[in-house]
């Protein structure tokens, strides 16, 4: 069953990721949501404060203007003010009306009535503002505006020693302008109003000429409200500082009210808060990151030990026991594992004993076979060449002694080759010219350890199946190392075998019980498989009429000092 490709991460990383996801991300989200809310509220409150202040000033100003405009309009309809002398009663009425207007608006204006040639008819103060007192201003300023628009009430900002809001209209008789009614509200009147609202306020006319301001900023070279920011709304930079501006216009855009809150400090505070929060956030992130590392390592140490123990078992080491853990679940797992490990070890021992017994049994299998063959040879040789038969008997007895000596399970290559040579010499005597052989042992492998009598059965196999009806046979034995493997190749130029035969032998070799006549190869392969792991054994390759090649693969084991000793 194949699973979809899935990234496998360690339990420790998983735990750590959980920490990060469940600690850093919520902190992160909450921080930024709070910051956004804070900034939003701050902005909202600035905006509201400014708008309220602006509305308050605007409405007071508009209300005052409206009342006085009404008053001026009523006075301007009375041409008798100019045409007849003003008696005490009328003066009283006019003064009372002005007082009432001052009382109802809260801001008192000065009343000036001039005749058509700008002579004073009725004035509130002895010292007239220059733009009313002097003939030079006849065609100038408020007087010009009134003359140009005699039918309506004119509102204008004028300057003298101080600034005045002028509300004026003409007095007409039979369509001709005969006089002027003007109410002046000095800017002083509204300065208290401006102190009642917290942001700074600037009152200016449509061209920016300032009527009243409680700010020292925002003026140009001529003292006008700086036109570069007249349309500004919201946060505005001016001379390197940040302000929050709200502007509105009243009286047909003749008077503009600018409300300005200096935001430099709160901006700096914003920035500071953002930086501090960012710093805290980064600090938390680093701390959580590090502690998550540590916590993950601590809390997964038992799991890691268990995993490691399993890893060891996989590698064949059954000595790794799990230490007791303070966590109940892990302790149970550990105990169970340790019991299981003991079971495994007993099992392994059993298997090893069985394998050893099997190996012994297999080793002993070749003996009668070999002895039978050789004795047959000796009998034959004794008739034709007693010297050779004697040599064969010596060689045979050496091999027999070697095979039955149980002292050492494994012998060096050179030792085994020595007995192989005995065997070959027996064959040479037996077949004489019909049999040739050569050995090629790579240098440096003479001291490697191998199970005894590994090569002999291969040669025996070649001789047994290679000749059949052939006249001669040559066998070559080659030994070399490749990586960690020791490889012996036994090659003959005999009759070989066809595909079917080859397949039969190959499948037979892998069976746990031998059913073929190729006893030698089977036994060698079985012994190797019992002694070593997969990857070692005998492989056979052959072609009909060309020969057979047997490859023996063993682990490379250098002779140990103590074994030599």
């Amino acid at each position, binding site marked *: 069953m194949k699973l979809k490709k899935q*990234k496998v*991460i360690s339990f420790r*990383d998983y735990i*750590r*990721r959980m920490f*990060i996801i469940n600690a*850093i*991300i919520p902190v*992160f989200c909450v921080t*930024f949501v709070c*910051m*956004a809310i804070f*900034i939003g509220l701050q*902005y909202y409150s600035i905006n509201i404060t400014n708008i309220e202040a602006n509305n308050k000033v605007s409405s007071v100003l508009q209300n005052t203007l409206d009342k006085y405009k009404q008053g001026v309009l009523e006075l301007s309809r009375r041409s008798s003010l100019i045409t007849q002398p003003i008696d005490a009663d009328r003066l009283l009425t006019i003064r009372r009306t002005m007082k009432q207007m001052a009382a109802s608006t809260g801001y008192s204006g000065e009343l000036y009535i001039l005749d058509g040639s700008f002579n004073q008819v009725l004035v509130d103060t002895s010292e007239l503002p*220059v733009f009313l007192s*002097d*003939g*030079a*201003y006849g*065609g*100038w*300023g408020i007087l*010009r*505006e009134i003359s140009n628009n005699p039918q309506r009430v004119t509102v*204008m900002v004028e*300057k003298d020693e101080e600034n005045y809001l002028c509300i004026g209209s003409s007095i007409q008789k039979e369509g001709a302008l005969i006089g002027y009614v003007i109410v002046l509200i000095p800017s002083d009147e509204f300065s208290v109003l401006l102190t009642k609202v917290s942001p700074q306020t600037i009152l200016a006319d449509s*061209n920016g*000429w300032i009527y009243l301001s409680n700010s020292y900023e925002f003026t*140009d*070279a*001529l*003292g006008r409200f700086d*036109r570069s*920011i*007249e*349309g*500004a*709304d*919201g*946060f*505005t*930079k001016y001379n390197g500082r*940040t302000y*929050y*501006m709200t502007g509105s216009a009243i009286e047909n855009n003749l008077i503009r009210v600018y409300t300005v809150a200096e935001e430099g400090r709160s*901006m700096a505070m*914003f*920035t500071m808060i*953002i930086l501090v929060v*960012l710093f805290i*956030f*980064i600090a938390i*992130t680093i701390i959580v*990151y590090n502690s998550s590392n540590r916590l993950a390592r601590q809390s997964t140490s038992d799991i890691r030990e268990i995993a490691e123990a399993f890893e060891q078992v996989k590698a064949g080491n059954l000595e790794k026991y799990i230490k007791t853990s303070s966590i109940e679940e892990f302790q149970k797992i550990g105990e169970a594992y340790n019991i299981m490990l003991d079971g495994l070890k007993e099992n392994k021992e059993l298997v090893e004993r069985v394998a050893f017994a099997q190996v012994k049994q297999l080793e002993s299998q070749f003996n009668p076979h070999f002895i039978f063959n050789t004795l047959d040879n000796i009998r034959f040789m004794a008739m034709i060449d007693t010297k050779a038969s004697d040599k064969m008997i010596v060689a045979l007895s050496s091999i027999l002694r070697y095979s039955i000596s149980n002292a050492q399970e494994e012998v060096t290559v050179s030792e085994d080759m020595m007995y192989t040579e005995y065997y070959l010499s027996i064959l040479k005597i037996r077949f004489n010219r019909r049999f040739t052989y050569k050995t090629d042992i790579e240098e440096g492998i003479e001291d490697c350890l191998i199970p005894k009598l590994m090569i002999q059965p291969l040669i025996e196999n070649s001789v047994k199946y290679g000749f059949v009806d052939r006249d001669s046979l040559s066998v070559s034995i080659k030994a070399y190392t490749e990586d960690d493997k020791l490889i012996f190749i036994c090659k003959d130029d005999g009759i070989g075998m066809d595909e079917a035969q080859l397949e039969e032998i190959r499948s037979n070799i892998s069976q746990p019980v031998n059913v073929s006549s190729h006893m030698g190869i089977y036994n060698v392969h079985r012994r190797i498989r019992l002694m070593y792991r997969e990857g070692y054994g005998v492989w056979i390759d052959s072609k009909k009429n060309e020969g057979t090649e047997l490859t023996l693969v063993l682990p490379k084991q250098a002779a140990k000092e103590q074994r030599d000793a």
Partner: protein
Amino acid sequence: MKSRFFVATIIVSLVLALGCVGFTLSFNKGTDNDVIDYEQLNIYSSHAVEFLSPIIAEFESRTGIRVNIKTGRTDDLLSKIEKRQNTDDVDIMWGGSLSVLRPYMNQFEEYSSVNEPYVCDEYNNVEGMLTRFVDVPSVIIVNLDLVGDVEIKGYEDLLNPKLRGKIAFCTSSASSSYHDHLINMLYAMGKGKPENGWGYVVDFCRNLNGQLYSASAVYQGVADGEFVAGLTFEEAAAKLLSEGENIEIVYMKEGVLSAPECICLVKDAPNMENGKAFIDFVTGYDAQRLIAQNLNRRSVRRDVEHSKYLIDKEKINIIYSDSELVSSMNDEWVQHFMRIYSENIDNYNWID
């Protein structure tokens, strides 16, 4: 992979943080809604703000043209006009006397105001580019509290040893009053021939001592009693009188040079028509009357009376200079004066 996750978190947080900062900073841009596209006029002027304000306010109110002003010293403004890369920021040069402006004549556009027929003959714009708008003659002011029995009626009287170190004179090349007085001196004391006036200049410098760098320090210094007499211009003197200072204006008996101030339309002015409208307004009756009556300068118009603090022009010994000679020699004369001045200034410290 874990570090990638960590890095991603950091990056996202930084992006959000920067976003937050950007969000707050984004408010800084002022929004320019409801700004009407007004007609504009850009003026360079060396006049005082108190002089400019009422005139510009009235012009704006009448025409709806918005005036942007740049104030500064006459010579600075003129050199700016001369070096200007683009003509976008200046339409009108307003300020500086005829003698100062004449060398820069080719920087200005020819324009004859609609009021030219009402202008006195001597103030006619004969060059075409230099519209006279006021006359500010040079005068001597005397602090009446300090002068005692010393009689000061003209330049000659300033050589009185009793006045040594007590005369205020601005010798800053930026000041029109310095140029005007120097030329006035040369013409008045040279009896119409400026080259003959240098003898007086030497004597005057010997009696002068000390140097003032601003024209206002001269008249303010006399009014405050730092100096007995000061060489200044009529407008400043009249203003002091209107403020009630105990001073006397002395029109030099040797002769008072007519020194009209001009207003000029800058060549290739971007707001040419508005500039012309402004010149017409400034030379118009209303503006001239206001300037004469309230701002203490002599009008160039025949139909406008001067301020009550000034005497009639007929009572002054008016002399005229050869304006072409003056503009060609101006730099040389100034240098020559400075030489004489520095030769005679040493070893006498009038500030105790």
